């Protein structure tokens, strides 16, 4: 009886360990995709006061990961890349002109873009809970997923200014 309990406990522990490893690997994959910052931004409309309405095309081997990473990519894109306009929708420049800002202020941006990080405060998914039919593309061995998000640029800018990452709009005067 004791031996059975012992074997049972070992098996349970092994299974839990296996699940933890698989889960960690999956997170690592997701983070690797994000660290490479492989995404494209498309203007979708003029957002309501203080927001940008954009579609973020994210690449990942797993579509569910891509959807989650889209929010992170959207905020990243607004801060560091900006996006081009199209048919009556104006493009927007990046919030910073400093191309090295992310590396220079890594101690700020690493936790900012970590899973569950502060970036989430400034972005919301603007769909009904599913990806549009034309926004889920298989490209080679990975997926390119388009997610429409609304980024609260006004709040994001204010937060980055408060943190000293950006100069205030009035600081030049």
């Amino acid at each position, binding site marked *: 009886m004791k031996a059975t309990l012992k074997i049972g406990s070992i098996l349970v522990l092994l299974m839990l360990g296996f699940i933890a490893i698989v889960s960690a690997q999956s997170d690592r994959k997701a983070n690797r995709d994000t660290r490479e910052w492989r995404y494209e931004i498309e203007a979708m409309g003029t957002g309501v006061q203080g927001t940008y309405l954009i579609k973020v095309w994210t690449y990942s081997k797993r579509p569910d990961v891509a959807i989650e990473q889209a929010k992170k990519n959207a905020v990243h894109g607004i801060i560091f890349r900006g996006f081009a306009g199209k048919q009556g929708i104006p493009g927007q420049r990046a919030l910073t002109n400093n191309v090295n800002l992310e590396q220079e202020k890594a101690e700020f941006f690493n936790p900012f873009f970590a899973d569950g990080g502060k970036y989430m405060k400034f972005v919301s998914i603007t*769909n009904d809970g599913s990806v549009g039919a034309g926004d889920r*593309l298989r490209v080679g061995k990975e997926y390119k997923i388009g997610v429409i998000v609304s980024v609260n640029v006004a709040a994001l800018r204010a937060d980055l200014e408060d943190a000293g990452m950006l100069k205030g709009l009035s600081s030049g005067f």
Partner: protein
Amino acid sequence: MEKKIIIFLCLSFAFLANGQNIGKTVDTKYLRPSLTTLFFQPKTNQENTVITKFKELPVINKYDDNKIEFPYFNGSGLSAADKMVRMKYYVQKAANPILAKWWNRDANGDFNTEFVAKRGGFSAIDADVIQAKASTTNRIEMIGADLIDKSYVFVYEITQLLTMEQVYDRTDAINRKYKNYQPVKRDEEGYELTYTVYTYKLNFNDSISSVFYNDYWTDAKNHDIQKVTKWKDATFPMMYKTQYSATVRSTQPKDPKSSVYLYKKKKTMNELLEDMALLIQTNSESELGMKIEDFSAKVAVFKTNPLSAKLGTKESLYLDQRFFVYEIEQDNNGTQKKIRKGVARVKEIADNNTVATGTTKPSVFQQQGGKTLFEGMLMESKEDRGVSVSIGFPLSTSNKQFGGLNMNLDYRISPMAKISGLALGIDGYVSFFNNINVGNVTVPSGVLPYSSAGSDGTSYAIAVFLAKEIYFTRKGNIYLRPSIGGGLSGYNFSKYNGTDIPKETDSNGNEVPSKDYSWSSIYFPLNIGLGINISPSICLEIKPGVAFRFASTTGNNEALTQSGVPDAKLGFESLDKLSMNSSIVCNLRYRF
């Protein structure tokens, strides 16, 4: 040299043709089509009755109704080619009132966006509404403008309208050429109508819409009398899409004592004629719905457990309507193609016949084969006719009467019965026997020879059945199909007791098989098929079942008595009693 030039031209053409596909994207957006119905000039009063009734019918819910007041097309005396040329000009003229309807043209000749916005609002899906809330630009009105390019015109031509008497005359005239000619039974009254419907689509692309806005747009704020005048002669391009011809019948039994009239009233000939309008509309819209891609509803997979998508009554969804589920693949040139990943059918229909608010309930689907599906995959309606045919052979049977060559034809009745997977069909078995000992079979009149060794003949079983397809796995690659039915089984002998059976002569003087040697009984089959969906149309089914057969009689209604020991597995041993017969049949089923 010439050869080299030809090879070069061929290669260039292939390269250019391939180049046409570069960057080609898959159209994933479903824009609600609108429909205008126009008609050829009626040639008779009867045709006029049908067309007048047709004009009163609303279009089915799937389309927006673009009814307009427009004269008939006069195509009489024209050759086929001339008719098509004239018809194109006719529908191009019809584009004028169609666009006037879209842009809500008023008595002063001014346009406004009220109607377009209203239609856009009704057509918008949840995603559009949510995006509109997050945007300062009104996307919904833009959807309305996109809908104009999905304006279809159906031009109906009645090519022949006959009374059933004329139809019978025609059939008799054809059959008179054959030996053993028998006049057709004239037991129905009503009409048979043959029609052709020509379909066109308004071309309202960017360049044509800019011509419209520049040359004709005038509104209450900027009234332009010159543009109002110019509008009178404006025509817009219409693209010929396809045509479809069919024959429909509206009939009822002539005999007023017919059992049909126990549950419905006998109609007048005029009412039967008017019924034609709905028959033509249902028939043509359903057929063209399968032919024209714009009419196929498209949507993204919303959730996968259960499989659901945001379509519903607004798109005239019906139970068991078939959808293909695709993954879109994009190559390095940006060219996209659809790869089918699964098949699904409508299981529960959501009522979405209102303006979307962002929280529309989705309809539920049952996947019926394919691979794992994911949210965001493209679902596209690929309607089938709801008919399936199967052919099979027995793997094991206790009575060959229910285990011979098996043929089965069924029709899906789920939309009418409001039960998914329900079908009504005919199931039949046929097998042949040679030199068989039937046993010692007698009848009260003692007509049958006592000893019956060396008999040849055919055994058959034919039943009407009700079946339901049940899915219990998520991918739906396998299904269960219980069915219950009732029918007739029997034996027809060509040789009995080693002697050829002489034929009898019926009241018309025709030779018919001897009634004493045509035995039949009532039976009730119960089956439960286990099917594998191999492709959207083909499935393999293993069908174990039992058939309860009651005592048999001859064609003269004489009860049969068995007192011998017949050869096994043909059911002769239980001719005179209730028997339970088991069989396992393997069927290949094809869905149309």
